[in-house]
């Protein structure tokens, strides 16, 4: 065979295979997920993976999903996302705040791939953002916490000083304070989303300091296990129901339900209607659910909590309703005013504590 014919036939073969692959690619929509923890963490990543499975259940053979677990938030994330885009993914969900810049960077190189970043604020033509109003759930937790604490000391295991976490602390604090003026918050920053041993140690340190309620913004159930060992300490499920620890120490929970969103967005890619947008839904839209309030909570408190849930859901109550001052005493919201989502003092970029919290936000 002459070299030219060899080359020509090789080129033809290549065209055939790539053509076939393209045709195939159009048949099956490939959906990628990048997770910050293991899918068995029982919390954040576990719920995102449930959303992925829901996408598979909804579309069956028409989709193919791929995922990567325990991806560090940093240079590695960019590599993983690039790899996923190269492998032919049509849409990629990056499910942690720290993937924001890597997602934007990779999206620039792959204009035909759709990207969805969870809990971030940077968008592009092919990058959407989505998050849930967890702070609505935390308002309910704060109410229960304020009513149930006997030592008036509430421990809070915080992950990273980002707006989402600070918002959660403020929301829980405001609603605990409202029903119990003596309440104090002890906040411990662990600088990790997932490290069961460290989370357990943090919970123990808080309990030793007298906290009898532990709130957490980390992903494992280790604080529940720690609270179980100490007597009379209550906790709440975070991201997932964590009902295996009910009725004590877990008395209720915030559950993230990503499935409807993922199904809708993958569907939009399939029928070509996908466009970049920002989604931020709460209890009303079902993106945030409240796990069953257990019998360890007195009936009247449970009733108040459910009433608050209903009011948050139908929009008649906003978790940040004035008067609220910032930590340094400057006014933030006037009487009856509710917080804006965006803007200088908006919820999306919240970087201050409200009045009454004695700690400082690490920079």
């Amino acid at each position: 065979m002459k070299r030219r014919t060899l080359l020509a036939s090789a080129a033809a073969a290549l065209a055939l295979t790539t053509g076939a692959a393209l045709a195939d690619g159009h048949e099956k929509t490939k959906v990628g997920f990048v997770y910050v923890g293991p899918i068995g963490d029982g919390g954040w990543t576990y719920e995102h993976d449930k959303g992925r499975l829901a996408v598979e259940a909804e579309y069956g053979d028409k989709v193919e999903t791929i995922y990567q677990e325990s991806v560090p938030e940093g240079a590695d994330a960019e590599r993983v996302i690039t790899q996923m885009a190269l492998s032919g993914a049509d849409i990629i969900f990056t499910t942690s705040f720290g993937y924001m810049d890597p997602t934007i960077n990779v999206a620039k190189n792959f204009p035909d791939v759709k990207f969805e970043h969870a809990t971030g604020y940077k968008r592009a033509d092919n990058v959407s953002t989505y998050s849930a109003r967890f702070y609505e759930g935390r308002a309910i937790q704060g109410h229960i916490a304020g009513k149930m604490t006997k030592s008036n000391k509430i421990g809070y295991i915080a992950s990273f000083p980002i707006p989402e976490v600070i918002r959660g602390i403020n929301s829980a604090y405001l609603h605990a304070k409202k029903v119990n003026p003596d309440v104090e918050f002890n906040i411990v920053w662990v600088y990790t989303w997932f490290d069961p041993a460290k989370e357990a140690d943090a919970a123990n340190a808080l309990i030793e300091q007298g906290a009898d309620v532990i709130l957490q913004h980390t992903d494992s159930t280790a604080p529940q296990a720690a609270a179980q060992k100490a007597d009379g300490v209550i906790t709440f499920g975070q991201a997932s129901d964590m009902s295996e620890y009910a009725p004590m120490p877990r008395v209720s929970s915030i559950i993230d339900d990503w499935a409807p969103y993922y199904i809708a967005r993958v569907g939009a890619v399939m029928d070509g209607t996908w466009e970049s947008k920002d989604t931020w839904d709460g209890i009303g839209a079902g993106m945030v659910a409240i796990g069953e309030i257990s019998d360890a909570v007195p009936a009247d408190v449970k009733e108040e909590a459910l009433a608050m849930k209903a009011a948050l859901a139908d929009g008649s109550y906003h978790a940040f309703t004035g008067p609220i001052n910032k930590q340094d005493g400057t006014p933030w919201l006037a009487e009856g005013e509710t917080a804006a989502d965006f803007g200088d003092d908006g919820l999306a970029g919240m970087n201050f504590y409200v009045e009454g919290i004695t700690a400082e936000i690490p920079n």
Partner: protein
Amino acid sequence: MDLGGISITLLLASLMVAATPILLAALGELVVEKSGVLNLGVEGMMIVGAICGFAIAVESGSAALGFVAAAIGGALLSMIFAILTQYLLANQVATGLALTLFGLGLSSLLGQGYVGIRPPAVEKLNLGALADIPFLGPVLFNHDLMVYLTLLLCASIWAVLRYTRAGLILRAVGENHDAAHALGYKVVRVRIMAIGFGGACAGLGGAYLSLIRVPQWTEGMTAGAGWIALAIVVFASWRPLRVLLGAYLFGGVTVLQLNLQAAGFAIPVEVLSMSPYLITIAVLVVMSAPRKGGRSRAQLSAPACLGRPFHASQ
């Protein structure tokens, strides 16, 4: 005893618990490295030990059986490394890294049915009157059996390495495997035994996490403890009693920073969070500083054949 709202007693007591898993893993790795083998798979062996121990403890209802299973699980996994590096002469660094990845995957497979289950409780040892001694009682004599067994293990390893023939052979194999071979010692056999021992210790460390310290099973729950154990061996310049010091220092700073925060100290959290690593680096720098002869202390104390493959034909 109180210091600015932090109970020193409770702090020291929780330090001993926090340090035990890394101490166990580091002691095992110390023996492995003393025999001249570098096994970077500690994290993998730990997490396999964590799930083996957890699963058996839950199924049998006995935490003691769980610990036995964890040691066996860790040792079995380390045998993969042993066969690859000692018989097939695979690269030790690459094989160790692969062992970690394999262990993480294997453990999440094994752990599928164990998420959210409570393990049988491990009771604290009843030491009677000793536990009533003020200050010392709650700090030293109010723990579970594993804490004391780990301390005993540390002392035993020190004594065996220093005073016994077995320890001498192990060190000879690690310092100069050709000479040891010429003297008729079975280099490969000694190293395989050391690797198995290291695997068992790492497995126990993992089970201590899943059965006592956390206690529950979650994927990826070792969260880097195995890597810290590796660093502590270097930090300790391959000496068992310094391994103890390193593990307690690391465990102590970790627990202290969480307690300082909980007590409301206005110290920058980032500094506190990285302090264990900063201290480790600082000590490593001091130890690596050149001495008179031009060789550093760390180099002087590292086993001379560390990481070098051995085959009788060479």
